[in-house]
């Protein structure tokens, strides 16, 4: 009994100073300025409590190559199908607590894809056909919530995120606007086929993701994986047309489809060169699968596509409220995928609207 008492006293004697030291590590006061200017290597994966973030981004993409099913590179310039992709992205996020974040994002995309011009020469004239597939419009709205481990960020962090993509954007293609130009005779004219596509997916989709981050002094490593899948099959329509003289008459046929499942994995290495300047390089991989499209009452599997991209970039804190992110995307390998080089610039606005 005496020994038990002695050991108990020794145990508490050792423990108490530690407890006292821990008690004296009072949590630092939440200073709005400090939180807004927290460098990448010192901040957690989610926003701080009460922090509001709005990100506006523009992505300029030059679509000059793609990969075929064997992973061989195809020059779209030589196929007459190169194009420019303009994407405008908007994202808002809010930190409900230091460990829970909610957010929403969407985008507007414009891309006009030309096909190779073809001319048919007969004894009585030449019919030239130009084809343009335009994708223009808003994308669906993504709503999500993220949780992170409930500890103060020191050197590592883990988060989970889940959400739904609401089919808010128009997904059925609008009526084509084909026109005849340079009409000289029934056998001598130019026909410009223009297909007007929208960017919605037409069905709700769910997603979940996980992320981890480790910071060792000025170096940080972040890894993230995400999976997206559709809730059900969708319905859309295909446009057909007939041409009488120089007048087009349009009709549509419905078809069903199932959007692809999407797996994305990315990892990045960051170097915090200064408190306001972080440079990074990200590798980004995606794979699509399990989608299908109906043609003439038969379901055909969509070809699986993969793409591996390297994205060097930087994060630059301009003021406590404003940060700029910029990175370029270089495609390294892929299958059945377009591979546009892109440059993405994001202006990030941060504030604590309810925090004095």
């Amino acid at each position, binding site marked *: 009994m005496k020994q038990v008492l002695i050991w108990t006293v020794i145990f508490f004697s050792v423990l108490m100073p530690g407890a006292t030291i821990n008690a004296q590590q009072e949590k630092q006061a939440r200073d709005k300025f400090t939180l807004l200017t927290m460098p990448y290597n010192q901040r957690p994966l989610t926003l701080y409590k009460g922090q509001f973030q709005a990100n506006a981004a523009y992505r300029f993409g030059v679509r000059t190559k793609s990969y075929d099913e064997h992973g061989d590179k195809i020059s779209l310039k030589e196929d007459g199908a*190169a194009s420019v992709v303009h994407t405008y992205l908007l994202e808002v996020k809010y930190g409900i607590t230091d460990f829970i974040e909610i957010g929403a994002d969407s985008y507007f995309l414009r891309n006009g894809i*030309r096909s190779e*011009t*073809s*001319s048919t020469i007969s004894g009585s004239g030449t019919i030239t056909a*130009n084809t343009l597939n335009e994708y223009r419009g808003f994308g669906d709205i993504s709503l999500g919530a993220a949780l992170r481990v409930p500890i103060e960020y020191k050197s590592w962090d883990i988060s989970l995120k889940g959400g739904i993509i609401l089919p808010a954007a128009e997904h059925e293609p609008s009526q084509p606007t084909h026109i005849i130009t340079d009409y000289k005779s029934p056998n001598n004219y130019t026909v410009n086929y223009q297909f007007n596509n929208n960017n919605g997916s037409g069905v709700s989709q769910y997603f979940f993701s996980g992320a981890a981050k480790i910071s060792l002094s000025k170096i940080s490593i972040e890894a993230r994986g995400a999976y997206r899948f559709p809730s059900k099959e969708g319905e859309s329509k295909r446009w057909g047309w007939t041409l009488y003289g120089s007048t087009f008459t349009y009709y549509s046929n419905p078809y069903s489809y199932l959007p692809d499942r999407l797996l994305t994995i990315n990892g990045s290495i960051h170097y915090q060169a200064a408190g306001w300047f972080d440079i990074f390089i990200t590798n980004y991989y995606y794979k699509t699968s399990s989608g299908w499209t109906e043609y003439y009452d038969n379901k055909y599997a969509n070809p699986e596509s993969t793409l591996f991209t390297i994205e060097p970039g930087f994060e630059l804190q*301009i003021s406590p409220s404003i940060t700029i992110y910029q990175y370029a995307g270089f495609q390294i390998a892929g299958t059945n995928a377009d591979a546009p080089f892109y440059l993405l610039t994001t202006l990030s606005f941060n504030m604590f609207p309810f925090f004095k």
Partner: protein
Amino acid sequence: MIMKRIVNILLIFLVALTGYSQTEKQLVPSDLKQLTVVTEPSTLYKGFFRAGTALSYSVVDKYFTNEKNKEYFLQSAWATNSGFNFIFQYGITDRLQVDAAFPLAINIRQSESRIFVPSADTTVNYSFTLQSKGLGDCYFTLKYQILNEKSNNTSLTGSLEVTVPTGEKNPTDVKGETDYNPPLGNGCFATNLGLKYRKIQFPYSYAGYLYYTYQFPGSKIMDPSDTQETEFKDGNHLDAGLSFSIHLNEWIALTNDANLYFRSKDEIDGKIPDDAIAPWALSYEPRLVFQVKRFRISEAVRIPIYGKGIGADPIYVLIAQYVF
């Protein structure tokens, strides 16, 4: 006696105050060379030399029709225009500056099409690439501060610019209608007169400008199949704009430029062609300018908003400059 002492004490205080007022920070030349795009004067200080290069890149994808609609080029062609413009500036006096610019351009145009002849059951792929690279038309500019910025942070600067047709004006290495090197120069002299008003109200600066360019007549080969040069006179053009700049922090500035461009109709062989139009465009150009001591990096995108008979594609520009 007491009065005399009081006066002496006051004089000592006044001397001290004068001493304080003289501790105001004096800008030394190294500081002046680090002024930002917002705070720098309209022309370089005497003896300062600035060298820089501007990398530009644009693709040919869309255009404004004569009906002012933005439409895609429909034929399956792909074209990019890129280049480096090397710019050197020197302050002769605090109010007078000279510039010299030497553009190197790389322009590529690829066209792909397919021709089907049913009677012969034959399909022919018809493709060609036109590429030109080299020196474009150089230009030299004289700028003078008519109203000097030093007095009240307001300046009115006049400029006179001369464009010299140093770029090749005719197609070269012509082997066929689709196998040649397109010209890089315009083939004529041009002169530009302009006025720029600028007001600095730290951390902001405002500017408004008006430039008029007169194009002198010239002659060149219009089509690679031509054997003789054709006389021409490009339309004169007008550039007017408003600019607003703001310091985002001590060394990063954001400038915003709204520009209106108008060009009168071109003439060929002394006549205005029937299908000639007077193109114009309204553009917006945001620019981020990073000032790291004497080194300056700018990123800008010129975005055509509205126009008629003119290209509608954004132009990306990256500028690097250093003051010696």
